[in-house]
């Protein structure tokens, strides 16, 4: 059982997952950010692999990715940074990126490297379920990695069941049909969707992401799922205050109340 599954065994409420883009604001901030998030009481950290064309992300994450690439971030360097961080913390770590990055590294080599440096899970939003199931699932599972798939308000029940079957770790519930960072409030339509998913009694724990930015939205999300994921709001905070330790402590305090 990897660290993500262990986390959900001991905690199934108010799980806070925070996303950051590796290489932003500074090229070598990865370790500082992860350790600061841990210190502030975050449960799970999602490490974004900066990408030139992040289709599922909004402008905030795209800009941070562009800046990170300009800073010189590469997958090779990120793996080195994560291997070093893993010696200092047992925090569950997830890498999030786009499938083209995996292809260029070499799919098999990539998955093996992710496991080797001590990362626990993956989110690859544009990796089709079919491709995953037929080409990568066996390898990924044998390495003990937890792959999380996304569901949205438009995902049909039959497909949600399939995703529940293929998922390890948690299901990533996209709060509304949107790119990241697009909305600021949780609506009745969204709550109806959260309830509908609750009623399906899925096997896996669920975290709500997209549009979670503060204490109010975090608490609402936690009422309807096991926790939530915050990305753009944290990136914005880092943009305003690049002092990682200070910014992170303040931000997490603001969210958790």
């Amino acid at each position: 059982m990897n660290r993500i599954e262990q986390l959900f065994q001991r905690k199934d409420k108010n799980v806070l997952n925070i996303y950051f883009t590796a290489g932003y604001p500074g090229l070598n901030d990865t370790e500082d950010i992860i350790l600061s998030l841990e210190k502030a009481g975050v449960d799970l950290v999602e490490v974004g692999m900066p990408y030139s064309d992040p289709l599922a992300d909004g402008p905030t994450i795209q800009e941070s990715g562009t800046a990170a690439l300009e800073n010189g971030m590469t997958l090779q360097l990120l793996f080195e940074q994560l291997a070093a961080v893993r010696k200092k913390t047992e925090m569950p770590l997830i890498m999030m990126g786009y499938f083209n990055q995996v292809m260029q590294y070499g799919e098999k080599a990539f998955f093996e490297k992710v496991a080797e440096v001590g990362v626990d899970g993956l989110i690859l939003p544009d990796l089709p379920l079919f491709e995953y199931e037929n080409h990568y699932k066996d390898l990924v599972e044998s390495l003990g990695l937890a792959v999380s798939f996304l569901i949205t308000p438009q995902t049909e029940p039959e497909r949600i069941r399939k995703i529940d079957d293929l998922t390890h770790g948690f299901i990533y519930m996209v709060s509304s049909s949107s790119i990241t960072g697009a909305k600021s409030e949780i609506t009745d339509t969204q709550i109806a969707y959260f309830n509908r998913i609750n009623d399906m009694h899925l096997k896996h724990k669920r975290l709500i992401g997209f549009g979670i930015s503060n204490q109010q939205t975090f608490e609402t999300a936690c009422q309807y799922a096991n926790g939530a994921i915050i990305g753009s709001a944290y990136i914005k905070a880092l943009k305003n205050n690049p002092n990682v330790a200070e910014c992170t402590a303040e931000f997490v305090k603001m969210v958790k109340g």
Partner: protein
Amino acid sequence: MIAVDERGYYGEFGGAYIPEMLWPNVQELRENYLKFMAEPDFQREFQSLLRDYVGRPTPLYLAKRLSEHFGVTIYLKREDLCHTGAHKINNTVGQILMAKRLGKTRIIAETGAGQHGVATATVCALMGLECIVYMGEVDIERQAPNVARMKMLGAEVRPATSGSQTLKDATNEAIRDWINNPVDTHYIIGSVVGPHPYPDMVARFQSVISEEIKWQLEEHTGKDYPDAVIACGVVAATPQELLPFPQRYPGAPDRGRSGG
């Protein structure tokens, strides 16, 4: 025609590498596009618009002075004579009929040179649908006449300001718009790119060009296949007019040649 397999692959290329947020839209299209295209009503409407609105068939013109210069026989397939001035409209007419049958009320598109944007704005005006065209900031400047045409036709032109501010970035923005509007919007992609079924659907709509070349060339020369077809680009997407041609591939004898 080189057929796409049911997963959307041509050999090792193709597929649908899209985030889950796009899945329902793409799936809806995938389940319906061949069915709709096969309906007699659809074909009637499509063919009559191509004839009476687009102005097809476009001429196959023997370019004598060009032939003379190069020392070979050159025919020009005059897609420049289509309504709106490019081949792009063949595809947008097809896709707007598709969008209507899917019950969509809002149309988005990306454009580089602006030809696809104009062709999309045109069919939206024709059908009374809202139209938003994403265009790179750099392209907005270098293709100003087409920006004006889109505005004249009632479309909203939204600048894409990321990256090199060209076609790739406009496409990114259009995809994001589609993610944010998963129910009422159809995305009219202008080239044989994007997730399955787009490349196949666009290619099918554009194959009218090659169908015409075949019978026109036969009228002109008695042979239904040229020795070579030349088309620009990969993005301007003209080579799909070759689609009905490569059916004898791979390596089958070239009947057009031996019979001609």
